[in-house]
């Protein structure tokens, strides 16, 4: 602002006011507009994330069925009933078991695949696209086809087993066998996707490190362990967390594997937590379903927290 001799008090006063206003607008712009920029996300998050979370908590404190207009407040009754419910703990065990069976091999395999693809290869793009193909397949198609492969009487896998003189396995009947079958479906669908994430991270690792290691005589495996893994740790943490959350929410695979058996097999041998919620939801017992949802949310928080600590602690030796 240019400084001039004020012509009069009124004018000076006006100018000061104008300055103040400008300052205010400027302040508002600096302090306020960022909120406007991020508002779309937070509004959507509130509508589709925070509000359902809070409302579910509210519903879980009631005896709430859909067809009745009266929702009786019952406090924490749903939760105490849940903690004494064998089927709930059974579903929790199944979820953890399927989660571990699918996630651990998946991540190891994904790192290995990414490592293989991270060197100069012919038809590189082809291989990378192929990796992603399983992931763009519809989950329904995947489960239906794998259910046939795992068929008891006419399934491909039992047929192959029969070459080695093994008896056919009733994959759906057993607890372990059904968990393996479901884990294989998840493994098949998600390994490539995670491998691509790892590959992207690996491409950012400076080449010189590998060159130096090669000169020092380090083998491919040593390079993977001592250079690659430590350098892509942030991505590993990310992938571990997203896979864990995904594993906690498995629904479509067990539901379709049992051809719409809401109990996840006659003995609930592969009923996951999500399926347990769905079963109670279709019984229109919304209060109880909401309580299970909240327990699942707490489980995810705990499991992700533990994972985060574990993956953070496992520091590499890159110095």
């Amino acid at each position, binding site marked *: 602002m240019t400084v001039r001799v004020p012509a009069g008090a009124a004018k000076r006063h006006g100018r000061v006011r104008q300055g103040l206003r400008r300052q205010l607008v400027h302040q508002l712009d600096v302090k306020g507009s960022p909120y406007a920029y991020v508002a779309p996300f937070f509004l959507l998050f509130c509508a589709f994330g925070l509000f359902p979370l809070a409302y579910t908590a509210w519903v879980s404190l009631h005896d709430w069925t859909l067809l009745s207009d009266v929702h009786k407040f019952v406090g924490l009754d749903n939760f105490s009933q849940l903690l004494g419910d064998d089927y709930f703990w059974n579903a929790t065990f199944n979820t953890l078991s399927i989660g571990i069976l699918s996630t651990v091999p998946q991540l190891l395999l994904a790192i290995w695949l990414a490592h293989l693809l991270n060197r100069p290869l012919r038809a590189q793009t082809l291989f990378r696209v192929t990796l992603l193909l399983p992931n763009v397949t519809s989950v*329904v198609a995947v489960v239906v086809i794998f259910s046939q492969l795992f068929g008891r*009487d*006419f399934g491909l896998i039992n047929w192959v087993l029969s070459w080695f003189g093994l008896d056919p396995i009733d994959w759906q009947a057993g607890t372990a066998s059904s968990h393996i079958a479901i884990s294989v479906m998840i493994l098949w669908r998600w390994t490539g996707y995670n491998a691509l994430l790892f590959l992207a991270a690996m491409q950012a690792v400076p080449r010189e490190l590998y060159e130096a290691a090669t000169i020092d005589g380090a083998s491919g495996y040593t390079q993977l362990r001592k250079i690659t893994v430590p350098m892509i740790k942030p991505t590993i943490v990310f992938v571990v967390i997203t896979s864990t959350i995904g594993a906690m929410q498995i629904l479509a695979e067990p539901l379709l594997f049992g051809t719409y058996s809401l*109990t996840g097999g006659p003995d609930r041998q592969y009923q996951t937590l999500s399926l347990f919620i769905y079963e109670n939801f279709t019984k*229109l017992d919304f209060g109880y379903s909401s309580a299970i949802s909240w327990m699942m949310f707490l489980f995810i928080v705990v499991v992700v927290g533990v994972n985060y600590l574990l993956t953070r602690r496992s520091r590499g030796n890159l110095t």
Partner: protein
Amino acid sequence: MLHPPRRGLPRLVAHVWTASVLSLAVFGAAACGGGDNTATGSGGSSAKPAEKITLTVALFSDFHFAPLYAEFKKTHPNVQIVERRAQFNDHHANLTTQLATGAGAADVVAVEAGYIATFTPLVDKFYDLNQYGLAKRQSDYLDWKWRQGLSPDGSKLLGLGTDVGGLAMCYRTDLFKKAGLPTDRSEVSQLWPTWEDYAEAGKKFIAANVPGAKWFDGPGENFRAMVDQAPVGFYDEQNNLVAGTNPDVKKAFDLNVQMIQAGESAKLAAFSPPWNTGLTKGSFATIICPSWKTGSIKDAAPTTAGMWDVAAVPGGGGGNQGGTHLMAPSQGKHPKEAAELIDLLTNKDTQLRLFTEAGALPSIPALYDDPKITGFTNAFFSNAPTGKIFTDAAKALRPQHVGPKAGDVLTAFGNALQRVEQGKQAPQDAWNQAIKDLDRIK
């Protein structure tokens, strides 16, 4: 040998696709349901004759209604009919949600026998069809089928019946021949006057060791048929859940356990993809056949034409499995047209036609002596006189009161039998757990 199943995959995918597309359609309809109200609201009155209106019809499978819609359009040129279908369980769950939230229900909805008692107490959620002149239809109907569609106090007519599910037993003549059993349908019927005889005949079949074939598909549907034949099923007339104390239920359970232990079950869950494969491959020699199931078998295993025949059901007929009512939810805006459509879709000519086309057994007893039905033979089932067989079954049918959560009860017992079948539990433990599961059914 590897025999890749042919029909299971496309069918299931098709089901799931339909279900998901339909649920989208439902949400869409729910979202814009408020805006397109052109009819006047006075006393639930309907559109003026010239006004263009759309009626939606929600079903859980192909009811072969399409030609009837065309017929309806002749008398109602201003009405457009849209049909939507969903998977069986989803269909009824969707309907409950739509009634509870007050939006998205179709103008005409199909409700299956296992669910009808869940919906008829919701008196104000459906139009009283008496108000639209359908009381006159009472004289057409089997009395028990008519009463199933009434409100609990009997004053309101909420649903009109389409078909009933009289029982028979379908069997594979080729497998019977291999096992040295008679193949003629009257001789076969004499093999099993009772279910105990049926179990005995199964022992003979298993002893003959026909490669790859068992006696029946799985215990669930037979169990259901046995319970359906009893005077009282899972509920008493006052809707008290008596499944745990009813001796007929325990008897049916025990007999199925015996048949499982004799190795008679192919261990296939009905309507699953492996079950479809089993139908085609001849994995089992007999299957319980409510009238409508003759249609399902033909759809699921078209290559087995001529290998099947139909005999009388063990236990002396009686027993109804399935059957449907059509209802008009009160959130619909055109009750008059909806009622007229329901009238057309359930009238005598329609029921006659649907029996010959889709195996849907009429709920109008006058038709049971109609030569078009009594003389009807089914080419797919070795020209078995299914018209005679099923009308006989329908005449012998002793109606049973169906309670509100019969479907959930059936699941509990079906799972228990499967646990025995898979060797996971001793029969007594499986029974006890089923009884415990009943406590969860509110």
